[in-house]
């Protein structure tokens, strides 16, 4: 979540969340924390893939649960074939996973996805 807040230019909020929010926080805990911090956000807990597609289509990305719901990673790309995630334990490289596999893992891990709603970082110039 820290990576996503930074990506959307909310550096102070990212630091606050990093220091105060437990990694074991569930949807209700995180929603309460975001509400307290005044952070705009959206989330689903029903495994709706359209939310992931929207998050990637608008270049915001989103946090998704994996590992049976014990861990959250940042989903930063999704197309019909491949998805890319960033793990907070090592954000230096993308982890590419077949989209079908990722969706199966996510849905088997409570299907929770959440993202802040701010301005995503501009693309690198072409």
């Amino acid at each position, binding site marked *: 979540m820290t990576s996503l807040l930074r990506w959307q230019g909310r550096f102070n909020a990212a630091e606050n969340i990093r220091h105060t929010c437990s990694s074991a926080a569930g949807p209700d805990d995180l929603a309460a924390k975001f509400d307290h911090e005044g952070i705009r956000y*959206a989330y689903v807990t029903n495994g709706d893939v359209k*939310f992931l597609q*929207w998050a990637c289509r*608008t270049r915001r990305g989103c946090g998704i649960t994996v590992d049976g719901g014990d861990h959250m990673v940042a989903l930063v790309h999704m197309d019909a074939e491949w998805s890319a995630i960033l793990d907070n334990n090592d954000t230096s490289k993308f982890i590419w996973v077949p989209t079908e596999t990722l969706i199966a893992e996510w849905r088997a891990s409570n299907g929770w996805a959440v993202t802040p709603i701010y301005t995503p970082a*501009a693309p*690198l*110039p*072409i």
Partner: protein
Amino acid sequence: MIRICRWLLLAILLFAAISFCFAGVNSQARVVKLPEDGSKWYVSVVGSDARYQEILGWFNTHEKLSALKNATHFCPITTESPLYKERYAPNCKALPTVRVQDSKGVVIYEAAGKQIPLTAGGLYGAIAESSNGHELLPWRRKHSQPMPTPAPVTPQPNPDPAPEPIDDGGTPVIENVFEVGGGLLLVCGLALLAGGILSEWERVKSRWSK
């Protein structure tokens, strides 16, 4: 004793009903409208000095620049920002920088340092001119113009005859030549026989009449 039990049961039921009602309220889902802004352009203003602050202020005070700010993803980036170090420092020629990009990242307008117009109106005019395609950055031209593509391949007629449909089963319908020929022979035979009998009858009849 029975009366106490009744009251206790009533209290438990009342508590359960109240808990259920509140649980229902708490579990109501909030629905937010997700912005479909994936095709928005990006306006980045990068810098940290007084000139940067002045240009940033234009996007609040100048009517048209303010409208542009509201219609795009507006990204004010200071040089202290981690995003600057990761995504802007390697490609900013000077500071401050004003960069307008389409949703794919193609630079529509970019000015840095002393290239940035003196006034808000001037900056808006420069952006408007570039976004109309009148003044593309030289290094952008090759990206913004349609790229030549190979001529479409005209399909050649296939000299091979169309393949026959594959019959995958069933008895093929074949006319029985022997049956047809046999019938014909039978008719001919009967005709000859009738002719023979008739001619013999005529011969016998003429003998008897003699």
